[in-house]
């Protein structure tokens, strides 16, 4: 998940954004999601086993779009689920506040499926690690692959992203987030310098 959930609780006096820029606009996002759908078809033989699982808040809309793209290019209906990782995170135990839980909705069993986790912004790898742990509690997938719309680096765990929308070099202190496009339809990814730690 891209946004740092503690960021909102911080007073406005915390380091002011030195700049905030759109690093992926809606057209670029849609193009990346279409390319990722093609790569998924290329890499997987049994498309019927696919199960797209979005990690809130950014993942689910991306997962739904990838599912639409897969229907368009390969004619398959892929199950889409939502998996909140909050209760599996390791970096919350030291924190003073308890993050809000998000919805989890796994419409069918994951046993023997090829689960593709979909996250908006990948960084340390801790969210993906938590998502894999959560997933294993739902069953035994045949394989797990990972989509990230943006990979900003700073990995802290041995986790590889299989499908990357765009690699964006960042400082650890930057904040990258997927959000609704301001003043219009669609989505955009913005980078705010000096606004938060990677998650």
């Amino acid at each position, binding site marked *: 998940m891209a946004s740092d959930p503690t960021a909102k609780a911080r007073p406005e006096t915390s380091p002011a954004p030195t700049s905030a820029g759109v690093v992926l606009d809606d057209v670029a996002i849609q193009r990346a999601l279409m390319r990722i759908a093609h790569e998924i078809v290329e890499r997987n033989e049994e498309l019927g086993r696919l199960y797209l699982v979005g990690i809130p808040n950014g993942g689910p809309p991306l997962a739904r779009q990838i599912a639409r793209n897969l229907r368009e290019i390969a004619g398959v209906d892929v199950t889409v689920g939502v998996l909140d990782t909050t209760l*599996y995170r390791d970096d919350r135990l030291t924190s003073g506040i308890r993050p809000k839980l998000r919805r989890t909705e796994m419409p069918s069993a994951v046993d023997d499926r090829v689960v593709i986790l979909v996250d908006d912004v990948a960084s340390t790898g801790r969210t993906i690690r938590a998502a894999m742990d959560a997933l294993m*509690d739902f069953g035994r997938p045949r394989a797990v692959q990972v989509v990230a719309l943006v990979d900003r680096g700073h990995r802290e765990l041995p986790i590889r992203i299989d499908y990357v929308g765009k690699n964006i070099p960042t400082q650890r202190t930057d904040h990258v987030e997927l959000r609704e496009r301001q003043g219009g339809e669609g989505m955009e990814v913005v980078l705010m310098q000096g606004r938060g730690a990677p998650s």
Partner: protein
Amino acid sequence: MMGRGLLGIEDLEREDIELILETAFHMKEVGRREVKKVPTLRGRTIINLFFESSTRTRTSFEIAGKRLSADVVNFSPSSSSLTKKESILDTAKTLDAMDPDAVVVRHSVAGVPKQIADELTAPVINAGDGAHEHPTQALLDLMTVVEEKGRIDGLTVTIIGDIAHSRVARSNIYAFTKMGAEVRVAGPPTMMPAQVECLGVKSFRSLREALDGADVVMALRIQLERLAGALFPSVREYSATFGLDRAKLRYAKDDAIVMHPGPVNRGVELSHDLANRRPGVILDQVRNGVALRMAVLYLLAGRKPGATEER
């Protein structure tokens, strides 16, 4: 409010209640999974300190803690040592030295959880104290009503029975009025606290008037073992006047739900057919109790006093 524990609904803001309920609904989904356990409280210790025996509530808290991967320890001091104030505070200090992350307290005397909370660094959750409050029961009742009715705001809730001696009644009065419901209470005059209207409720002597147009009917447990003969002439008379059956329930709305904190004295507060009614919500209350207590433990036991927000 939530920082120092959960001692009563009286201390909560509406936003706190909404956060707890929202979290509880997410926890309920965890309870429907094949593996009903999440690692969020791994390495945390929760002590169930029950001075007054209660298998249901204690078990509910125990399951809730275990589903969050906490280590749950049940501590039930013998009843002979609890009448002395010193021993309660000594017990609290002893427990504090064991470094728990949350302590769940039940006691037959009002105010003991607060006293213990003042001695502990860990948050204290009140699991029922005398005739004072039973906050998790009221919260799970709210949760059950939200599930059934989709809202609390604007509903009419009638609570029947021993209002004066019931911590469930008190917590529910605070809970439902804070969430915007109209709360009515009905019962024999001996069981009605003086000036109960100060709590923002309407009181009735007639069950029929109290039930008129009610969306939710909540029957309280009559403590037969303690009260029979003292506050009403006979069980049969109580049951005839304030016991709920199908005929009396007709005064309420057609889709009214019947709740009871359990265990039910069949034929006293509720007729057999109402206690058995399917679909009924009384077992949903029990089921929601686990999810609700998971939410409270998650929100309270997960944090360390003085922990900084570092990532």
